[in-house]
């Protein structure tokens, strides 16, 4: 009896404590996840002299807002700026080309892995897993040496090829999972009607997999946009080919005020966050589909 009452009261205490702690905990996580981005935007709009005077101030008055840092970053180098408009175009082009090539290759590969029994299927699976989990820095050495030797460093199309190889495995996994949810009977019906394998993929499987393909494409674009190591190794000597990531990092190699650096970071971050918020559900579902099975 007393035992039961004690457990009963412990229950009530825990429930009451959790009722208070839960909103506090959620607020804490929102704060730590969001504050750095807020801080970045605020600093990008303040004057560097004001920041040095009052580094603890984390807001900007409406009358103090300055767009000078953005002008410095975006203006072409011929006008004394950093030429980030050019870098934005490079990053977008690089990302889109990577998405196009990766999707074209991985749709075929994922279809094969999900639908067809062929010799070496398990080996292929192991190969892709290794590529996904092996360090990029390991590839950096031979690719850097080979591209230097062939004189191909600094050129964007070759970087596309590196990015395709890096993103293919994850694409195959994401697409394969989806292809397996497309009922096989639909394809068999088409086959009975005399459709060829490529026709089946184009007319039946692809239209049904559009959401998965869109999610995978967005994911690849984000990886290509955020990539830093290979851009640094391959492009650093060719300023007109820099990506936004590389452009921002190179700002720290010259004496740049923190405001300019933050303005560059805002320009680098905003497109990705907009894309992500636009497609959040699509992306997260594609990535975690396996987790429910425990």
């Amino acid at each position, binding site marked *: 009896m007393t035992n039961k009452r004690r457990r009963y009261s412990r229950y009530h205490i825990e429930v009451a404590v959790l009722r208070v702690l839960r909103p506090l905990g959620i607020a804490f996580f929102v704060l730590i*996840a969001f504050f750095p*981005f807020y801080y970045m935007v605020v600093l990008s709009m303040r004057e560097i002299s004001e920041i040095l005077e009052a*580094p603890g101030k984390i807001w900007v008055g409406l009358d103090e807002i300055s767009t000078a840092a953005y002008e410095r970053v975006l203006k072409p180098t011929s006008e004394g700026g950093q030429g980030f408009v050019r870098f934005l175009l490079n990053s977008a082009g690089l990302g889109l080309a990577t998405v196009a090539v990766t999707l074209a290759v991985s749709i075929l590969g994922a279809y094969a892995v999900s639908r*067809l029994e062929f010799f070496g299927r398990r080996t292929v699976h192991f190969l892709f897993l290794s590529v996904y989990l092996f360090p990029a820095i390991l*590839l950096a050495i*031979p690719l850097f040496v080979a591209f230097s030797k062939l004189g191909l460093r600094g050129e964007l199309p070759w970087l596309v*090829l590196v990015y395709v190889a890096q993103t293919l495995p994850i694409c195959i996994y994401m697409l394969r999972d989806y292809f397996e949810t497309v009922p096989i009977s639909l394809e068999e019906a088409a086959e009975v009607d005399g459709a060829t394998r490529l026709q089946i993929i184009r007319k039946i499987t692809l239209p049904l997999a559009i959401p998965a393909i869109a999610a995978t494409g967005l994911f690849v674009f984000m990886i290509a946009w955020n990539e*830093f190591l290979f851009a640094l190794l391959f492009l650093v000597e060719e300023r007109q080919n820099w990506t936004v990531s590389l452009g921002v990092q190179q700002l720290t190699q010259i004496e740049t005020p923190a405001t300019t*650096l933050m303005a560059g970071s805002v320009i680098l971050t905003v497109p990705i966050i907009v894309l992500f918020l636009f497609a959040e559900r699509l992306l997260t579902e594609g990535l975690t589909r*396996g987790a429910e099975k425990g």
Partner: protein
Amino acid sequence: MGAPAAVEAAPESRRRARDTRARRDSRAGVALVSPTVIVVLVMVVLPVVWALILSFQRIRLLQIRRLDILGGEYTLRNYDLLLNSSEFLTAARTTLLYSVFGTLGAILLGLTAALLVRRSFPGRGLVRGILLLPYVAPVVAIAFIWQVLLSPQLGVVNAWGTDVLGWDQPIPFLSQEKGTITLFGLSIGVPTALVMVILFESWKSFPFAFLFLLARLQAVPADLEEAARVDGATPTQVFRHIILPQLAGVIALIAVLRFIFTFNSFDEIYLLTGGGAGTQVLATQVYTFLQARSDVGASAAVAMFMAAVLAVLLLVYLKFFGDRDRQP
């Protein structure tokens, strides 16, 4: 009475149809998967094999234009130098600490966040989106935000630390190798910069753990918990005895994956500290050998050491999670 003969004939012809069909499928499968395999072979497998060869040669960056691809003398010098260099052993130790605590931090933060956000409340979708930002945002941008945040001259952390918390002087978080914390008269030595990059890694990666754990939590059957609650189990008891056992598998999977990714990571430390102040890990050492010292051979040898560790981790992954190969 002719029926049995017909029944026997049918599987015969069906088997033949299945054989050609299987062969056709197999050929189509190889054809469709070959573009992927070719790209991976040319851009990944061949380079790795070549890196292995490079690690047995004495090659400096300036010589590579004249270099014969397989030529040159083979030597164990690079490995010999590495195993006798305190630099390499320190980097290996730092990598281990960084990977273990970075993984641990990400999982603890991710688990806490997933448990908090589990039940619905107004604005839950928005909160979930915000919590994923550190993982989604470009690493270059967030590394420099942290650099400014922690800067001794203009960072808000030091500004508040000195003004509000009464620190004697600003702390150079990312360039101080050893600091001391004095608590109740006890002084403890702390590897400041290493702790900061571990915190950064935990912060950046917790959304990964959060996302997978939240998805798994949503699949825990509600009636089990309900039954426990009816029996008088308190929330911590429900967590300990009902929820945690259900999550164990996913947590193990996340731990292996996060350990691998953290072990491999180069960008984070390169951008935050450049590998200085006691934060040099193997990945940044590969880069330092390649670029600053232009010693291709030594750089490849460090990378091969990383590859060997990764191969072991990959086997661990396959042994425990190979059958549920749905996982990316």
